[in-house]
């Protein structure tokens, strides 16, 4: 060999450099292939391409460019905020303000308004309009000196802080305001913004924050000082009035309104406002919008006054979560060592306050000295207007078959400006001796129906009609009949302006001393009594949707019924004896051997079952089955034609997408978070918090929100949305209140249903979340939730039931937590027996973010066997399980559900006819990485050989 080619040093350098690159690309390729679904979604790459036809447009969007979509979303979001914000106090008609009014904006949040929450609805709010912008746009003059103080002066060092799991208010101390700043506020109206953050992954701080009582939702001393000093200024005629904006999706404690030295003129709850909501707020302040929102949550004077919070107070750090006493000895890990107890039973929110109030008024249930006003500042359903309304001609008519009641009432605008009005009907079921004996609970009032008027001119009236189904009177008895029952006794339908007024109307029918009722609006005539003469133990014991027999399914989540409870037990609140059942000590659980066994993932797979047919050779396309019944044998033909590999791909590759399968001409779909904003928005849009939509009590408007949301989603090249969130505002401290509607399950369920209708009409598949019992965020990855079945069915599950029956949601998302010891995504009683068999759900259930969380318990085998159908994760081969016939049957059922949903509900089907072709596409990054690996591998090998050969040859010479 020519000596000039013998360059071992050169070859070695080449070997080392290409070897390094080979190692990097080879290892990187492994990572990339394990996460290819995620990479494709992140790079917005489809793995199929479709032969689209203009003749097959199943869903059409109305707008087709960013500007038009943005304008439409802005219009609807502004309307939603304007109709959902709630006017809580308006002394001496302090509002609306005159348009030429000078306004001084107080509070560090005045220049840092809270637009949305962190987590799945988080968006970049830096481009959103400010409070000042919104106010000046409607004609107000805003005090710039004060704004400068907050944005560039001393005040800039203050404002909301989130550090780890701790939220703090960090308001500017009053002694930091300089004289020039305070002089600038003369003759102005003071608008004080009280803002609170919230978000995914952590609950609101109940302790260690700088709120007066250590919680984040009480006012800090600095905020109280500010209000006191402003009151002094008002008394000195330095400022004209004080208006407070409650800028939070979590309910801020209202104790400050009762404080000596604080005299606020007006209070308005505006929630989180999203990108455009401030325009609605400004219009409400100047009177362009007449507030008609009604509280979707009770607004407390004492946020710790509910039975749920009484329980939290007894836990370490006032936390929702506790650890099993023996978690170390039992070697429990972060996915199973924590638990939370829903000790309140059905007494969530106003159901507790109004029931205890009624019992106190009637001297029932050992209420002790209960003072309603010490707990509640503004009841559920409360809300003021710039006008007044009267009710006339209230009447209730039973239907001829006795299955429903129609309530009619005329609403007359008796004020001087036009406005809308929400009519709300509450029901009361009898609390019978059977209930008292057997642990069945009944709330004094429950929202039963509602409707919103159109805008009524002064002096004019509008008749409103609301139908209540008799089935709404049913109660779940988990003890004796173990199903829904309808008990004999007196039922009431009450036309109440809020929950408290509703119970007062009923109380007047129970011959309570009317002088004890401090409610000018209470009227005996607005409560209608219905006597049911006989118990009915059969009619409601079968599903109205499927005919499936309904019986206890959640005994394993009720510690008092769970067969492995050992010495553990829960005392649930009972109106039969409030004092005795009130939490007095921490509810401590010890993990028993049965519980430890139940925690374990990878339950034994069945050994029976018939291996499904694969690769039948028949060509059946998904588009050819549009409109086919779910149980049609044509779906079997299609599933038989698929390969096992394709079915597995379809059920595992669900990271913000569903996989395209060319063999059945199924296109890729793309999904996005979250409930109040599509995170991939191209228009920088977001909506106000869901609680604001709910408090509009306007289902037509909420459907319109769904429609506008759909337009923004379609404009973002997305086909599905991980929304709506329908968990319950169980306490004021839930971390994701922004994404959930209300403390009331009917309002939550109906609001979600109409949003879903709006979204799915445009072909956006909704994924209702988080199923189920994910009311809190603390330790959510695997926390065991313990609750009784009556609360589960009547409060926590009802919104999901409505979302999949009334709303017909195409998909549902499981939660991270457990029901008792079982992860909800693997709980077949919940996800199969209730969701599929009782409610007739034909869509698919996706896990929560399995790829970034909870890998110890969110496992494939348990999930598919337990009713989950799709993993929010990257593709997996499922090699360990694919020879098990029972498992493969579940995978096939899951594939069926995904295919059925996309086929009939997804805009991704647009353009596909029966004979259309969908082709596989290899992503460009995959080709590139493979090329690098092969190239560097070859060069490294050659240079290694050359190095060795050169050295040997040189040595010989």
């Amino acid at each position: 060999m020519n000596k000039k080619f013998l360059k071992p040093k050169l070859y070695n350098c080449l070997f080392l450099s290409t070897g390094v690159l080979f190692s990097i690309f080879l290892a990187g390729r492994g990572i990339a292939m394990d996460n290819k679904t995620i990479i494709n979604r992140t790079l917005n790459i489809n793995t199929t391409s479709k032969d689209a036809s203009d003749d097959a447009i199943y869903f059409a969007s109305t707008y087709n460019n960013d500007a038009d979509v943005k304008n439409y979303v802005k219009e609807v979001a502004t309307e939603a905020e304007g109709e959902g914000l709630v006017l809580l106090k308006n002394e001496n008609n302090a509002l609306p303000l005159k348009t030429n009014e000078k306004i001084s904006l107080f509070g560090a949040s005045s220049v840092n308004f809270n637009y949305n929450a962190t987590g799945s609805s988080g968006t970049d709010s830096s481009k959103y309009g400010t409070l000042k912008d919104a106010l000046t746009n409607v004609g107000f003059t805003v005090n710039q000196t004060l704004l400068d103080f907050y944005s560039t002066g001393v005040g800039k060092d203050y404002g909301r802080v989130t550090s780890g799991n701790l939220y703090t208010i960090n308001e500017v101390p009053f002694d930091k305001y300089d004289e020039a700043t305070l002089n600038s506020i003369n003759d102005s109206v003071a608008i004080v913004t009280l803002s609170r953050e919230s978000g995914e992954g952590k609950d609101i701080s109940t302790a260690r924050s700088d709120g007066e009582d250590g919680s984040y939702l009480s006012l800090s001393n600095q905020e109280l000082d500010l209000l006191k000093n402003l009151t002094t200024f008002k008394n000195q005629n330095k400022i004209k009035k004080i208006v407070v904006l409650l800028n939070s999706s979590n309910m801020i404690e209202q104790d400050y309104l009762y404080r000596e030295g604080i005299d606020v003129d007006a209070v308005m709850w505006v929630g989180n406002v999203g990108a455009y909501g401030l325009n609605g707020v400004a219009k409400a302040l100047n009177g362009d919008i007449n507030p008609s929102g009604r509280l979707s949550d009770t607004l407390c004077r004492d946020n710790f006054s509910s039975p749920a919070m009484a329980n939290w107070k007894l836990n370490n750090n006032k936390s929702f979560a506790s650890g099993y006493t023996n978690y170390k000895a039992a070697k429990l890990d972060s996915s199973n060592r924590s638990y939370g107890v829903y000790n309140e039973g059905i007494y969530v929110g106003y159901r507790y306050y109004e029931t205890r109030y009624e019992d106190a008024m009637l001297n029932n249930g050992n209420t002790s000295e209960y003072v309603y006003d010490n707990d509640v500042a503004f009841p559920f359903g409360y809300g003021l207007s710039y006008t007044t309304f009267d009710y006339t001609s209230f009447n209730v008519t039973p239907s001829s078959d006795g299955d429903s009641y129609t309530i009619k009432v005329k609403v007359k605008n008796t004020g001087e400006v036009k406005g809308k009005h929400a009519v709300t009907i509450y029901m009361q079921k009898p609390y019978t001796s059977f209930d008292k004996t057997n642990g069945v609970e009944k709330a004094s009032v429950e929202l039963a129906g509602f409707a919103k008027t159109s805008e009524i001119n002064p002096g004019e009236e509008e008749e409103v009609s609301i139908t209540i189904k008799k089935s709404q009177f049913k109660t779940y008895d988990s003890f004796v009949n173990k199903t829904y029952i309808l008990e004999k006794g007196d039922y009431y339908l009450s036309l109440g302006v809020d929950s408290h007024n509703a119970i007062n109307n009923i109380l007047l029918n129970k011959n309570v001393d009317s002088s004890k009722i401090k409610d000018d609006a209470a009227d005996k005539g607005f409560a209608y009594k219905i006597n049911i003469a006989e118990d009915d133990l059969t009619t409601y014991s079968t599903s109205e949707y499927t005919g499936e027999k309904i019986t206890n399914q959640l005994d394993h989540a009720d510690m008092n019924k769970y067969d492995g409870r050992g010495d553990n037990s829960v005392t649930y609140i009972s109106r039969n004896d409030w004092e005795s059942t009130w939490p007095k000590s921490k509810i401590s659980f010890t993990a028993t051997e049965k519980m430890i066994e139940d925690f374990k993932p990878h339950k034994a797979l069945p050994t029976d079952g018939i291996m499904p047919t694969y690769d039948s050779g028949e060509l059946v396309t998904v588009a050819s089955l549009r409109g086919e019944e779910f149980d049609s044998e044509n779906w079997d033909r299609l599933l038989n034609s698929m390969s096992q590999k394709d079915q597995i791909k379809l059920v595992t590759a669900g990271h913000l997408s569903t996989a395209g399968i060319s063999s059945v001409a199924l296109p890729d779909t793309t999904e996005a978070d979250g409930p109040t904003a599509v995170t991939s928005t191209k228009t920088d849009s977001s909506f106000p918090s869901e609680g604001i939509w709910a408090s509009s009590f306007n289902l037509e408007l909420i459907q319109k929100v769904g429609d506008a949301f759909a337009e923004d989603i379609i404009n973002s090249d997305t086909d599905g949305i991980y929304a709506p969130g329908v968990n319950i505002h169980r306490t004021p401290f839930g971390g994701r209140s922004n994404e959930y509607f209300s403390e009331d399950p009917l309002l939550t369920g109906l609001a979600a249903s109409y949003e879903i209708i709006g979204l799915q009409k445009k072909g956006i598949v909704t994924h209702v979340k988080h199923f189920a019992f994910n009311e809190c965020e603390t330790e959510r990855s695997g926390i065991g939730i313990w609750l009784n079945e009556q609360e589960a069915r009547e409060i926590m599950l009802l919104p999901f039931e409505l979302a999949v029956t009334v709303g017909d949601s195409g998909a549902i998302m499981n939660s991270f937590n457990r029901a008792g010891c079982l992860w909800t995504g693997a709980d077949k009683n919940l996800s199969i027996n209730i969701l599929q068999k009782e409610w007739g759900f034909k869509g698919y259930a996706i896990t929560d973010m399995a790829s970034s969380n909870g890998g110890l318990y969110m496992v494939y085998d348990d999930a598919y066997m337990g009713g989950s159908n799709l993993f929010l994760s990257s593709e997996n081969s499922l090699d360990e399980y694919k020879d098990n016939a029972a498992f493969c049957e579940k995978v096939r059922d899951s594939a069926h559900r995904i295919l059925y949903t996309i086929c009939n509900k997804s805009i991704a089907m647009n353009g596909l006819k029966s004979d259309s072709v969908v082709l596989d596409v290899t992503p460009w990054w995959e080709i590139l990485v493979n090329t690098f690996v092969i190239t560097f591998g070859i060069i490294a090998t050659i240079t290694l050989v050359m190095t060795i050969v050169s050295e040997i040859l040189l040595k010989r010479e």
Partner: protein
Amino acid sequence: MKDFLKNKTIGFYLSILSIVLSIILVVLYAIFGVDEFAKTYNPSIFVTLCISIVLMATSLFYEKVLFREGSLLLNLYAFIAYFGTQLNYVANLAANIDGSAISSIFIVSLILYVFDIASSIVSIIFSKKKEHDEINIYQTQE
């Protein structure tokens, strides 16, 4: 033993350090490799680290720089593969979804990998610095 250690280069001692670090990394991965974010072991990490240890150990007796280079490449692969197993954890940290704290095992492993790779590199460099004869450049000690 004295004879064996006589006239050894810095590269020799760094090779020993690299072996020790690799052994610790194998043990750490065996104990902590499966957690709530990584459901299964990545066998290639065990394989590459073990081969790397063997190559580096061989270089102690037969100081061919190619053994050290091979060990370096395998350590590099193991490091990236380990990071891949922790990707979900890192993503969780980055997104601050659950307020997860940084795991000490993760930090320790990262530091050990960096030192392991660094010691491999330096051992290669110092192996070469001892050589003046091009012919013997790939055999640091005769």
